[in-house]
């Protein structure tokens, strides 16, 4: 035993010696990553930005005495693009220059498209945040009059309760109907498929106020203003959105799976219930949440169905209710600055609620593995636009699939 160990050690020593003697002769492998954006490239980009800014500044405000931020930006963009192309053309090759020019144009375009969204978010937070407090969230506008100065501004609690109830009832009515409609159009089919699809398309193009007028005339005139009437109007809004979303998702489910199910002697309802819907699950949840998010922000159909009030009315079936969107609309029309600000607070709360809906959609939509919530929470936290690749890979084949698709990605690059 001892001998063998000795032998092994000797062999190892020999091997090491060999490795050492061979080391200087080893060819150094020069690894390249053709698409790498090196720090030097970042420097080129920043310097080009700076120099184009400087040139334009000299021309714009020193030589020609023009002014105005918009004009500056409008001129800066083409100047930067031209300069960036030229610099890359000089430093590298024509191919690199064109590549980077197009990348810059696309990135700029994306940035410009994002701008309104970012500004909107900033605006709502800026105006709504100062009044956002526990007090505002937990008090109603009971006893608040809109004349003169008030120490008690009131809050949005009654509107939060109203919105939650109305949207919940609308979802309970609208979502099953919408999914069944989509199943009818896409899975069952038949003579009425086309006409149903036309009706759904027409519904999705109907102005929201029409939904409000419709419910007003058939419900409110007979009974009274109520949260439930608002729910009915929201369900009318929600139905076409969710139907169309669901239909698109069902279309993606590969026909092979339906055939496999039929070949296993499954009746059609079973194919839909056990194969099609579970396969489309994450898309279904997304389209459902999208419908909820759309209806949660609707104002027009609520004006003449829930009417709005200042006190807490937790019963959606009787008497006027408030909703966040309607509260924001009403407050912002008031002539008192502090009341207008409360309207923005309502808008901010609504904004956060919609965001929460999407977070929930993401959590439930991706939680398909047995390990459940923890993993899906993780996937949400890790979520970035780029990681959709990872999700896709996970769908296709877990770690192996991920590895494969990453390799593929690398090859593609």
């Amino acid at each position: 035993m001892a001998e063998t160990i000795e032998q092994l050690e000797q062999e190892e020593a020999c091997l090491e010696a060999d490795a050492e003697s061979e080391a200087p002769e080893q060819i150094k492998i020069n690894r390249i990553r053709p698409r790498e954006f090196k720090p030097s490239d970042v420097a080129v980009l920043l310097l080009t930005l700076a120099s184009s800014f400087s040139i334009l500044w000299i021309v714009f405000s020193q030589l020609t005495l023009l002014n105005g931020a918009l004009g500056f930006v409008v001129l800066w963009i083409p100047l930067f693009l031209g300069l960036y192309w030229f610099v890359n053309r000089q430093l590298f090759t024509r191919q690199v220059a064109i590549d980077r020019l197009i990348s810059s144009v696309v990135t700029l375009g994306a940035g410009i498209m994002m701008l309104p969204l970012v500004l909107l978010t900033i605006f709502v937070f800026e105006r709504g945040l100062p009044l956002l407090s526990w007090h505002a969230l937990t008090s109603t506008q009971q006893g608040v009059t809109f004349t003169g100065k008030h120490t008690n501004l009131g809050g949005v609690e009654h509107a939060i309760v109203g919105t939650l109830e109305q949207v919940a009832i609308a979802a309970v009515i609208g979502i099953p109907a919408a999914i069944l409609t989509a199943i009818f159009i896409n899975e069952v089919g038949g003579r009425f498929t086309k006409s149903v699809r036309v009706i759904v398309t027409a519904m999705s193009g109907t102005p929201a106020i029409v939904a409000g007028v419709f419910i007003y005339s058939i419900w409110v005139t007979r009974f009274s203003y109520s949260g439930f009437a608002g729910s009915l109007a929201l369900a009318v809004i929600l139905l076409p959105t969710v139907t169309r979303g669901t239909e698109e998702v069902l279309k993606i489910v590969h026909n092979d799976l339906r055939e496999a199910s039929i070949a296993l002697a499954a009746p059609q309802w079973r194919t839909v219930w056990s194969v099609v819907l579970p396969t489309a699950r994450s898309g279904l949840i997304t389209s459902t949440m999208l419908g909820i998010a759309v209806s949660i922000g609707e104002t027009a159909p609520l004006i003449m169905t829930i009417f709005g009030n200042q006190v807490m009315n937790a019963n959606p079936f009787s008497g006027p209710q408030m909703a966040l969107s309607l509260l924001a609309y009403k407050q912002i029309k008031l002539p008192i600055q502090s009341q207008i600000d409360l309207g923005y607070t309502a808008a901010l709360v609504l904004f956060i609620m919609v965001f929460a809906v999407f977070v929930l959609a993401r959590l439930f939509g991706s939680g398909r593995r047995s390990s459940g919530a923890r993993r899906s929470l993780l996937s949400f936290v890790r979520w970035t636009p780029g990681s959709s690749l990872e999700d896709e890979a996970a769908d296709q084949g877990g770690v192996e699939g991920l590895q494969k698709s990453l390799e593929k990605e690398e090859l593609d690059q």
Partner: protein
Amino acid sequence: MSEVSERPETIDGRLVSSSRDASSATDLRIDGVSAAELDAKGIYAWFGARMVLENVDLVMERTKVTALIGPSGCGKSTFLRILNRMHEIIPSASLAGRVELDGDDIYDPSQRAATVRRHIGMVFQRPNPFPAMSIRDNVLAGLRFNRIRSKHKDEVVEEALTKAGLWSEVKDRQKDLGGGLSGGQQQRLCIARALAVKPAVLLMDEPCSALDPGSTLRIEETVREIADDVTVVIVTHNMQQAQRVSDKTAFFLAQDGNPGYIVEAGPTSEIFGNPVDPRTADYVQGRFG
């Protein structure tokens, strides 16, 4: 047929028995007893007004592997889909003729299509495990879809996966999603899924065309093994595969937009070794198609 659906327990853990007396069959066979003979008589098929199959007769013998070969578009797949009533789910499709499963016409008005498909399983060209289900649930899908309650699900899963040659590879990860397997494994999972309801006949529509050579070989072994228990009908474009796996071969041909028909059918050794028709000889030797 109601008789079968009222006796859901018969499938439980039952071993394949060879003692069944074929001549006594009056109704469609009882679940999971043994392979059956499939006899297609005078089959015609249309898509809309276009006839795609003309007067096809073929006997697919019990526990034998029958290969359907022929160039693309000659109606082999259509013929295969007629054998378990999958043809009729295409809205424009129609057909004529009789398909007898041990003497019972599967297109008899008293037969439920679902029951026919339960007895005559199918494996498709592209592996199509249900992506939202685990490996185990995929195997049990047929039982679930047919509301067959079983107290021996573990045994059913093990038996089906073993027959499909996948058990040793997946026994420790039955809870994983079926989509996480490799292509060849997925196809074997689909075979296991089809076998779990104990069909009498298994139809395979180019089961290896989406797979690499190694997985293909593995599926071919599986086909040979399951042929002891079930009659197999396999469509293939691969001559070597037909030679390797089948006992009997039928050569389909469709010329100049005319409907497809069987040029020649017989023992595989005859079709490849000593074909009667010169077109068969040309095709199997790779001169066209």
